[in-house]
């Protein structure tokens, strides 16, 4: 009877795809392992999140508490950052310094899908754990997963920490170097990609299943054979394995782990497991797919129609001035402030700016809708141009009839077929109507902000809630002062203590001093005077002076060549930077330097992957290159990784050996019914070091001129009638 029940639970026959979504609800997303990647309980699987997904996972599995940030830039690639609190080792050998703080290990994992699941064959993935970290969790694996009805079966081979009870490595037949895995040979500062021992040493076998239980609100049962070598992973033997460790890791009484995953909703999973035959572990994960146009909230921010449109058309037919005034009246409240306008025969030309929409076709389409509703019948063509910071970006010319013909059915591809999208040079004097702006003009807002340090050695999250007064004082069309002042309200910085041990100029590693000196004080986050130019077609320039970022002030500038119809851009920037005092007011420290970079950008149009290579002299006077790869998704999510190599030695760089990390920018509008251009960004590095540090000046030219390149407009043509 019990066997029958178990069989029924394990292999419930699928009735139809549709009804299964009700029998096994919230099963769209795979679940996370305690290692912080998609997987079973301790072991990985070949499953991946959909492309564009971002997740946070947290688990407690003695002696580790682990927080993980996981990003899936491609359907075939997953990258994750692991922050592990190692509870059997102290923070340092000095008890007065450590207190009760335990050791924190930071590392990166990666997994690549090498075969997609088919009706007969399983999904197959290869993965790397603790890449470029200290190596205490280092493992590689080859894993296959196959779903049969409501059971997802997984089996894999593991090297390194996943090789318990292992057998002879078959790769030895290819090369003898695969016979031994001597991690102690790694004499670097940690953080190197130590490819020398990958897939070396004995091989372990692991296997398991994730069972989707019918009609139990999405509850999943997991069981696995664990091939983790607990005598290898972490600091298993107390001080015998690591000076800072104070007790042994409890060795397993059983290799079979089991547990449950309960999805509270399709994005939040809770888990409870029994591992190693004696330990309860638990955790949760939170994930979302930002790869879709509207990932979570359906937008309720439609274009606002012009009331009494027919009346406006009659009035605007009387004189062009009436048309200009009507344009001003209707574009400005719709967050598309009119800059200039003119009528040329049957063509109506306007110039607008905007800071609400991420999609340029959407805002262009909305401007066209307004013009179509107010312009007199004599207007047969519209030319809508955009400026940013006084710089001309693009102009879009379309027949009025064409635009309105496809509006109701939203057939954007036919609408843009004969329309013209071009680079735009802004010359206000070419326009008859130039509404006067009273200068100087101040734009400001008071908003709460959070200064934060994530994944630092003292703890995972340190934050300071602040109240900020920020804004811009426009002095001329392309000359403005940007500022942010803030006052600290509440923080948890008491535990922050790590001092810099860097042998380089402390351009970044004094971050704790900055955080502590500013916690309850009024600070100037930035205060800078910017002037933007466009000296020639496709060439942009910026000159800046002031307190350009938290840690540096200076004077400098940037030039960018960004041809409108190409996918690349080349720029250069040069700064004289002086380090700001820790209290982030108006005083400076002694350190000053010249820094300059040549920047090259290339955007691959099919995948929307941006490759940015920056080379030159960095803030700590080291020279070299920074490589940055990022992908933008339809929702506006941006996922990126970076690394730098400069002319300093691993010793000079310090722990971590070289600069590397990953980041993501999440569009705020994903969580709201209204459109907005804001993003929430997180950047993660294993360690903050001084090598390869760049000046983080705001309003960099590549960002300011985004719509100055056609690829960033054409990618969103489907938004034209949104």
């Amino acid at each position, binding site marked *: 009877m019990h066997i029958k029940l178990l069989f029924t639970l394990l292999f419930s026959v699928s009735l139809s795809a*549709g009804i299964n979504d*009700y029998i096994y609800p919230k099963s769209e997303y795979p679940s996370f392992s305690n290692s912080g990647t998609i997987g079973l309980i301790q072991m990985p699987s070949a499953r991946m999140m959909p492309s564009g997904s971002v997740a946070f996972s947290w688990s407690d599995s003695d002696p580790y508490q682990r927080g993980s940030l996981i990003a899936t830039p491609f359907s075939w690639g997953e990258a994750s950052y692991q922050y592990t609190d190692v509870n059997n080792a102290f923070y340092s050998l000095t008890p007065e310094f450590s207190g009760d703080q335990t050791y924190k290990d930071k590392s990166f994992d990666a997994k690549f899908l090498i075969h997609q699941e088919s009706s007969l064959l399983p999904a197959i993935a290869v993965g790397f754990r603790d890449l470029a970290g200290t190596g205490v969790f280092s493992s590689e694996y080859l894993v296959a997963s196959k779903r049969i009805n409501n059971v997802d079966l997984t089996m894999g081979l593991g090297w390194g920490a996943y090789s318990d009870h292992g057998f002879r490595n078959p790769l030895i037949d290819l090369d003898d170097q695969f016979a031994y895995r001597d991690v102690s040979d790694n004499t670097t500062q940690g953080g190197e990609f130590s490819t020398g021992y990958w897939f070396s040493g004995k091989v372990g076998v692991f296997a398991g299943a994730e069972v989707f239980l*019918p009609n139990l609100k999405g509850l999943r049962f997991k069981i696995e054979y664990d091939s983790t070598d607990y005598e290898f992973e972490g600091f298993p033997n107390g001080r015998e394995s690591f000076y800072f460790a104070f007790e042994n890791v409890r060795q397993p009484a059983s290799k079979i782990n089991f547990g449950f995953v309960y999805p*509270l909703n399709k994005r939040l999973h809770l888990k409870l497991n029994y591992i190693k035959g004696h330990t309860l572990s638990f955790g949760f994960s939170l994930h*979302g797919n930002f790869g879709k146009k509207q990932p979570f909230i359906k937008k309720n921010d439609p274009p606002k129609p012009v009331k009494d449109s027919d009346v406006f058309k009659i009035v605007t037919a009387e004189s062009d001035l009436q048309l200009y005034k009507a344009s001003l009246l209707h574009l400005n409240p719709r967050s598309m402030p009119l800059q200039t306008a003119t009528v040329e025969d049957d063509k109506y030309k306007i110039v607008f700016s905007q800071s609400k929409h991420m999609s340029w076709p959407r805002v262009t389409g909305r401007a066209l809708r307004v013009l179509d509703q107010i312009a007199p019948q004599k207007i047969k063509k519209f030319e809508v141009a955009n400026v940013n910071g006084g710089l001309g970006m693009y102009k879009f010319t379309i027949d009025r009839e064409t635009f309105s013909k496809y509006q109701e059915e939203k057939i954007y591809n036919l609408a843009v077929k004969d329309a013209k999208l071009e680079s735009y040079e802004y010359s206000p004097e070419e326009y008859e109507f130039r509404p006067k702006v009273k200068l100087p003009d101040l734009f400001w807002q008071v*908003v709460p902000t959070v200064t934060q340090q994530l994944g630092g050695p003292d703890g995972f999250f340190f934050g300071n809630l602040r109240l900020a007064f920020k804004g811009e004082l426009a002095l001329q069309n392309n000359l403005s002062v940007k500022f942010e002042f803030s006052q600290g309200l509440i923080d948890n910085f008491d535990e922050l203590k790590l001092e810099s041990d860097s042998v380089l100029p402390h351009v970044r590693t004094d971050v704790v001093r900055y955080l502590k000196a500013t916690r309850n004080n009024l600070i100037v986050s930035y205060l800078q005077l910017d002037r933007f130019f466009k000296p020639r077609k496709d060439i942009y320039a910026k000159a800046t002076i002031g307190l350009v970022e938290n840690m540096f002030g200076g004077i400098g500038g940037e030039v960018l060549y960004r041809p409108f119809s190409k996918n690349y851009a080349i720029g250069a920037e040069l700064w004289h930077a002086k380090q700001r005092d820790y209290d982030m007011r108006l005083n400076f420290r002694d350190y000053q330097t010249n820094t300059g970079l040549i920047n090259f950008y290339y955007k691959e149009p099919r995948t929307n992957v941006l490759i940015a290579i920056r080379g030159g002299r960095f803030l700590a006077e080291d020279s070299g290159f920074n490589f940055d790869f990022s992908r933008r998704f339809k929702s506006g999510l941006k996922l990126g990784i970076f690394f730098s190599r400069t002319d300093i030695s691993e010793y000079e760089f310090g722990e971590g050996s070289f600069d590397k990390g990953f980041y993501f920018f999440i569009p705020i509008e994903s*969580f*709201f019914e209204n459109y907005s251009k804001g993003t*929430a960004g997180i950047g993660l590095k294993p360690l903050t070091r001084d090598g390869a540090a760049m000046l983080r000046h705001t309003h960099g030219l590549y960002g300011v001129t985004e719509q100055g390149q056609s690829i960033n407009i054409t990618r969103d043509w489907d938004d034209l009638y949104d």
Partner: protein
Amino acid sequence: MTYMIKFTLQSLLPLLMMTSCSFISYNQVIPLMKQAVIGSPDIELTKEFIDEQRYSFIRVDLGKGANIIMVLLDIESNFYTWVSATGEKLITYNGKVVRSEGLIYNLRHINPESFKLFSSSGFNAGTFNLMLENPKAFVEQEFKITLIDSSKDPLLFEEEINVSILNRNYSNYYWLDRKSGRVTKSKQLIHPKLPKIRIDYVYKF
């Protein structure tokens, strides 16, 4: 129908707060958080409110923070079509929702006429066939309708539902006005992925 939207928001706000940085406009977050946690104020069916309405309507309460008014658009063969200001539709038959359009999750009864509150045998039983949408699935429901309180006005009916394939049993309730013979209030589960809804019916004829 914004209930599901709010549900999603509730689950995502921790992420939003966690990833906060200077780019976030918190003045947008605070009211939304309040709405997600506390919910929107109820639309109260006061005499003034009812008098103000020109047409028959229903108030649909989806739980925390989500109650909406839907106006009677059409009656055909005892099928009442109610429509919201944003275009969602509910079609009721004897007070039971037998079809919906424009919601996040929709349904369509194949044999809605089987739903009868009164029966000569004292109870009415049978099988409903219905199509669920998003995801699409065909489901059979066994039902039994019983008058469980005849002592009061309105009469209270219980509709017991058993969906064997989903291993799910639940009851819907209908309050029937003796005088008009119409359902004036109901509590019913219309879709497995939606919470139970409460409907108040106000007839202006």
